[in-house]
């Protein structure tokens, strides 16, 4: 208790509070600009933190992280471009809601879900961290392979368009993930002689390419008309306050999503996109109105956003807890924060809790406060964000493209990645023209390499036998869930289509 009170005193000291507000704001800003990410926000600020005491530096970094992840919501909701893999499914419903003329509500719902998801995960971080970390340790190559299978099953099920096209897109994504060195023997495949491809396609340029170029081109088709009809008068404050209390209406959905988000975030080294997709899929499977998913469903937004923010807390667990890993950070941002620990001379690891519990508590409290600051700043800024949408397309589109190109470069300091961005932009355009869903392609590309690595490692361990996938309980459970989920979601979408047909839409 004394530790907690001291930590609260530390965090609420004016300098520290100022840094948290500044950190969240900067993170939000970078996250909101498509092409710039939370990773970049943290990367830019780490050198600045050298001059700060660790008690100030880490709250700042955590705020940047929270702000950056939530900032992705802004571009996802308002211009339909997910800034990071963690807000891919957010686009489906948020952007639809914006196009229906309710940008304030879309932002409000997303922020509220992020706030509650973030707070819940902060609590989970304190209470559940050790048992969760222990559970995550039980995941070996067999379990991970089955978890990836589950994700792939969900991906094709949530897209809601032609299933055959969904599977084709997934397969293409898996194929593209094979470009570069294979994860087991280090032999290069399909690089066409470009050494820059020996590590495969960079994920972020591919992601923003897929979504941005197609969105910009369709924006250009609209010509001078702004993206949304912002003419109706709406009160952002009213939207935000209202949506803050919409969450209790969906309490069980929210609870399920948050638990899932935290749990998935705990698994070391698993992409954040996985949390977003799995949470969205379960939200749809349990929804009262699954047919509304993808058309501006409140449940969809909550599922996606509560999930990814819960995962941010989850991703910090491996970084901070007693038993687990450190250094197999949940995502790229926590990887950077881990580096910052070392640079500040703090050895992260199982001993951190015992030797530095005061310091860890400060990080927890800062994480909590940063989530609240995030909501307030979203509220304060969204009017400006929404106003920015009335910028004519011929100004907005080039600016977005420029930022995306800069962002693609900055990820790994390579010009080559700008070309990757352009290439995937063209693929995305082709997919839109032929009405093929983008999400399966993206997930295949992002998760493919890990899937291959875990699957092949599993086969090496079992000396070629597939039996352990079915004899190990966690793995078996995951496989059964994926089969059931696919059957259920297939019937669901068939029913939804029938309903739509009946209503004559």
């Amino acid at each position: 208790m004394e530790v907690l009170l001291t930590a609260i005193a530390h965090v609420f000291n004016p300098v520290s509070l100022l840094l948290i507000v500044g950190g969240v704001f900067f993170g939000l800003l970078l996250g909101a600009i498509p092409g710039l990410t939370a990773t970049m926000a943290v990367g830019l600020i780490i050198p600045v933190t050298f001059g700060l005491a660790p008690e100030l530096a880490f709250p700042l970094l955590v705020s940047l992280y929270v702000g950056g992840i939530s900032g992705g919501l802004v571009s996802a909701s308002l211009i339909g471009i997910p800034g990071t893999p963690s807000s891919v499914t957010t686009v489906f419903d948020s952007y639809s809601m914006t196009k229906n003329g309710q940008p304030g509500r879309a932002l409000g719902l997303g922020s509220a879900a992020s706030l509650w998801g973030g707070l819940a995960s902060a609590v989970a971080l304190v209470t559940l961290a050790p048992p969760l970390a222990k559970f995550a340790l039980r995941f070996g190559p067999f379990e991970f392979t089955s978890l990836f299978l589950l994700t792939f099953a969900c991906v094709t099920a949530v897209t809601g368009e032609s299933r055959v096209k969904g599977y084709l897109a997934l397969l293409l994504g898996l194929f593209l993930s094979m470009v570069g060195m294979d994860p087991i023997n280090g032999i290069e495949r399909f690089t066409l002689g470009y050494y820059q491809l020996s590590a495969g396609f960079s994920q972020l340029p591919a992601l923003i390419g897929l979504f941005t170029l197609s969105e910009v081109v369709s924006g250009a088709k609209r010509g001078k008309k702004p993206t949304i009809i912002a003419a109706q008068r709406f009160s952002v404050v009213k939207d935000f306050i209202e949506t803050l209390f919409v969450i209790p209406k969906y309490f069980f959905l929210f609870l399920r999503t948050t638990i899932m988000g935290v749990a998935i975030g705990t698994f070391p080294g698993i992409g954040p996109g996985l949390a977003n997709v799995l949470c969205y899929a379960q939200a749809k499977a349990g929804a009262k109105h699954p047919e509304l998913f993808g058309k501006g469903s409140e449940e969809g937004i909550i599922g996606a956003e509560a999930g990814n923010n819960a995962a941010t807390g989850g991703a910090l667990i491996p970084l901070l807890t007693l038993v687990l890993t450190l250094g197999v950070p949940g995502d790229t941002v926590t990887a950077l924060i881990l580096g910052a620990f070392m640079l500040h001379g703090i050895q992260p690891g199982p001993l951190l809790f015992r030797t530095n519990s005061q310091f860890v508590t400060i990080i927890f409290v800062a994480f909590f406060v940063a989530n609240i600051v995030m909501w307030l700043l979203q509220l304060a800024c969204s009017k400006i964000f929404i106003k920015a949408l009335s910028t004519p397309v011929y100004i907005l589109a080039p600016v977005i493209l420029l930022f995306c190109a800069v962002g693609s470069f900055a990820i790994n300091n390579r010009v080559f990645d700008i070309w990757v961005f352009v290439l995937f932009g063209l693929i995305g355009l082709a997919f839109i023209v032929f009405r093929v869903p983008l999400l399966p392609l993206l997930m295949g590309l992002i998760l493919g390499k890990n899937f291959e690595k875990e699957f092949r490692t599993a086969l090496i361990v079992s000396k070629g036998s597939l039996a352990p996938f079915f004899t190990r309980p966690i793995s078996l459970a995951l496989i059964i869930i994926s089969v059931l989920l696919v059957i259920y979601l297939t019937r669901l979408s068939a029913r939804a289509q029938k309903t739509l047909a009946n209503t004559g839409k």
Partner: protein
Amino acid sequence: MTKRVMTITVAVLTVLLLALAVPGGAATWPVKPIEVIIPYAPGGGSDVTARIFARYMEKSLGQPVVIVNIEGAQGKIGEMEVLNARPDGYKILWQHHVLHCLYLTGVTNHTWKDFTPIAVGGKSDNVVIVGKNSPWNSMADVVRDAKAKPEHFVMEFAPGTTNHFGVLQMLSEMNVTMNMVPKSGDNPRITSLLGGHCDITAVAMNSAMPFYKSGDVKILGVMSKDRSKWLPEVPTLMEQGINAELLNEYVLYAPKGIPSDVEAKLRSAFKSAMTSPELIKEYEAIATVANFMDKQETIDRLTSIFNGYEALAKQFGIYRK
């Protein structure tokens, strides 16, 4: 009057611009920031050691020394970036001996001879670890059980790296076989060990230390010639009759063909950084030894390491040249 002022201003600006545009002679080198390419993600051993010496090199060079992380393909992409860089000394590489492994296993087509080696810098140790519940307490225990059950125990290693070579050498000296499971990254292997998915592995001492101190892993041996200063209680593999070694030794490289005076300036700045007492202290805090080697010493060292690895690669059938 104003016209004359403008003419003079334009002339001065032109001269200034020209002076900046023409690459300064070696006498003025460096005139702009120097980039140190780290072929790995931020936060690892390569990154942290470089960020420390960069601060000391800045002082003697009078220009910022910037760390740029270009990761991918086990270090190949960062290496290529420097290999193909203009040889002006503004882009240099901080890489350990995995450079030879990448060449020998067919990942890259360049050796250390395609660079200008500036100097060998820091080094740190590797250790062999098992989980806290493992029945093994010494390498002799491992040899006994592994002989009884060939190909049975799961040994995780980082494929195609110095770790791979070191582990192969160790097993061949022990005259045992294990179920070899590839897994890159020290921390993923430690996680695997804690979760019981692997029986034994080798990692950098720095990575193992927190888990060793907390009692989650046991260290069976240090993979160096001498005992480690930070682990005086743990015997080396050689003391336990296993003639195998695995060192993380970092080398600073510049592109081939840089002017010899730039090379000399880089080397002396690096030397004054590496021999400064403050840096030595900072390195010790992360269990790294700052072992600067002169030009000839560096070349001898690289030659002998390369030849040793080449023989190992051929012996174990992973030679792809």
